[in-house]
């Protein structure tokens, strides 16, 4: 039996959890330099909870939108912190964006990326250049939008999206944090990558690998 779209989306979250596990210590270390050192742990708890919540869902009948909103609720109930509201709002927006879709084609992936980035932006009231995960999600969503508009192939789409994400994460080292605990450090945050941006690239890469 071939995999349906809901199963594919659930597999994406599984992969996200795996990459976060691999990166967990590095993320906490990055966070230790400019934050409270728990980003890897928080992300790990969050994505484990997402997968636990998805395990209870009947993926044979579930819609894409249901997978997304289940992920949103699972993440939020498990972690709180700042990543909880941010990702759960992003995933909830994605659930709305995917409400009318049943296939995970490039347009659906674009909508998902755009919805996640807008949800995160609206909840956190951050902007590009504030040294946050948005510096990854916004460029990734914009690259996805451009790639779809230009009729790019699937491979080109994801390579543009991951390149934009990676660039965005790298650029956070040159930024002075304007949001979150790192913002108190002012210029002392220069030269450090933002852990939220680094975990965001890991998630984008997990999307690229599974979609």
């Amino acid at each position, binding site marked *: 039996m071939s995999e349906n779209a809901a199963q594919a989306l659930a597999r994406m979250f599984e992969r996200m959890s795996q990459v976060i596990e691999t990166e967990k210590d590095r993320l906490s270390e990055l966070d230790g330099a400019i934050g409270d050192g*728990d980003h890897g742990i928080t992300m790990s708890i969050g994505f484990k909870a997402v997968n636990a919540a998805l395990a209870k869902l009947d993926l044979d009948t579930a819609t894409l939108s249901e997978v997304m909103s289940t992920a949103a609720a699972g993440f939020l109930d498990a972690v709180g912190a700042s990543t909880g509201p941010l990702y759960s709002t992003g995933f909830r927006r994605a659930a709305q964006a995917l409400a009318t879709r049943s296939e995970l084609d490039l347009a659906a992936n674009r909508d998902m990326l755009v919805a996640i980035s807008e949800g995160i932006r609206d909840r956190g009231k951050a902007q590009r250049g504030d040294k946050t995960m948005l510096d990854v999600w916004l460029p990734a969503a914009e690259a996805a939008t451009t790639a779809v508009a230009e009729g790019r192939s699937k491979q080109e789409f994801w390579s543009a999206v991951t390149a934009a994400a990676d660039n965005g994460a790298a650029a956070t080292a040159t930024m002075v944090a304007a949001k979150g605990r790192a913002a108190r450090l002012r210029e002392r945050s220069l030269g450090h990558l933002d852990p939220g941006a680094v975990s965001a690239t890991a998630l984008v890469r997990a999307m690229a690998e599974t979609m």
Partner: protein
Amino acid sequence: MAIKTSSPRKGGIGRVNGPEGVDSIPLRYGDDPYVWACWLYYEDGMTQGEIAEAMGVSRATVNSYLADAREKGIVNISIEPARLASLTIAQELKRHFGLSDCLVVPNDDNTRPLIGRLGAAGAQALAKLVKSGDTLAVAWGRTVLSVGEHLETGPLQDVTVVQATGGTTANFTYTPELTTAAVARAISARCVNITAPAVVASAEMQRMLLAEPLIREQFDTLARANRIVFGISSLRPNSTIHTSGFFESVPLQHYLAKGAAGVLAGRFIDERGRPVDGPLDDRTIGMSLEMLRGIGTRVAVAGGFDKVPALLAALRGGYVNVLVTDAATGAGILRADGVTSLDGKLSQRQKSAPVANAYRTHVKKFLNNPNDVVEEMLDGLIAAHKPYLQPVPGSRRALVARNGPRPGKVGLVIGGGTGHEPCFVGYVGKGLADAVAVGNIFSSPPPDPIAKCAVAASGGAGVLFVYGNYAGDVMNFEMAAELVEEQGIPIRTILTTDDVMSSPVEDKEGRRGVAGNFFVFKVAGAACDRGLTLDECEAITRKANDRTFTVGVALESCSMPQTRRHNFEIGPDDMELGMGIHGEPGVSRERVRTADEIVDTIMDNIFKEMKAEAGDRVAVLVNSFGATPLMELYILFRRVEQRLAAKNITIEANWVGHYCTSLDMAGASISILHLDRQLTDLLHHPCQSAILTINAPEPDEAARN
């Protein structure tokens, strides 16, 4: 020998301090107190006070040793540290980016505006660089205009100053025309303006204008430019680029979306300095990036942390070969580009060998499974504090006071991450908080338990949310408030912001909440217990927060149960001033001083903001971050009491101990609540909780006075 080197520290305080004073000069100083004093001062970086102690002489003697040493030529090079630092940064920028020269303005405590300081420095650089017969292109901008205003050159002949871009609307003072004119006037040069707009309506219009003989002639002059001075604009929301009218906002979004990091002479570059194309390219009249890079001397004048990405982009792209910036921005650029050698060069402290790390890599803790610490703690805590609190049915992360909520009373909900025990659970009980939402370590609880707390605490008169001002807590409590208000329970929120060091006073609302929570919870709990209205409770709680001031100092960072490693290292001789309660770094790293000196620094910072007068009353909290023992807290309290007494301020009540911790962090904070009659009254209102119990007032006040 005045340039400080990084030799290991030799004479520590107290170690060479004997009763025999200068008679005990260590052998290596050859019986010469001048050399000894100079060594301690210049090489070991000790203060004159520390040296006096080490040598067993008075400070005045040390002072005269140092002064005489200069005269005698024992010390013969001296560079002021701020200038030395800016010189070091300039050298490093020059080396790292292959610049032909670099001028870095020393930091001067921001007593003068940055633009003016940069303008003066840019003028100094230009005065050296511009020669007779030169053609100098000038791009528009605030900083470049300031260069023009400060510029004074020797007699120069046949210099032409040419505008690098077309013109803009004149609703600000630093238009291309005015900037160019200011520079030309200062040099007494011929001034050539570009008499076309910088941005025109269409590509066709641009072609037509550039074909006009007059404008072509102006561009011919521009093409002859052998030097250029320009500013660098960031694309951050506060940048003048958005308000100058130079660009319309819609195309600007296009460039942002394509990764633009900065603007030079009206042209966009990405973070690596590559040109970013967009709809304005063929509508812009002005120097191209290619032309700019072809000019021999390219002087960029810019500073400010917001500009770091843009400056870095311009440097990486090779658009700059003479940089004028300030020391803080210069150091920021280097740090942002991964240059770490600077820290060692700037530091007057010695880096000690990492002996401690080799000895032990993990902190020992009482643990079963590190992933279960919060759950297991809750098991113990719920059992231990049974008389005061119990879980809300259906969630162990929402705990409610047994005798707290009652009909007609405003409910008080507090909460936050764990790792701060006894914050926040210890303050749940009658007369204090009605319910507490419990998160993971240093992480806000999710909205669900917060909403459960609000429902449990509600007595029909509304609910107050009081919690520390952190992005995560704010988002989760806001989401919870939305959920609960849908159920018809009015919510008011007070964010605690007592940490004086976390933001300047102009941004008081942006400060974080730390141990001063204790006072705010106490006052809020009393107001609610008195049966005051939601409005009154909110106003009183806000007042308590406004009048609570905390400063913390950490000696060692904390370690998470999962990693059992310090979040970061505070050097063996250092302390972190303004450290937060999540192990996040503080605002500055300093050498550890005596307990009294540390308290003095803390109290000076508090007095700066607390407008207390003689005869006023305060409440004092000396709080351990976790690892610091009571013995040391009492030593701190001793000095707090002395400083308050010296101002004739009365301590109405005080607490010394573990009230808001940060796991096993070593350090302490001092919180002062500046009382008035109402706050005094509420402070003494009875309450019963696991950590704080106040009985109805009894006449035992005499002991304190």
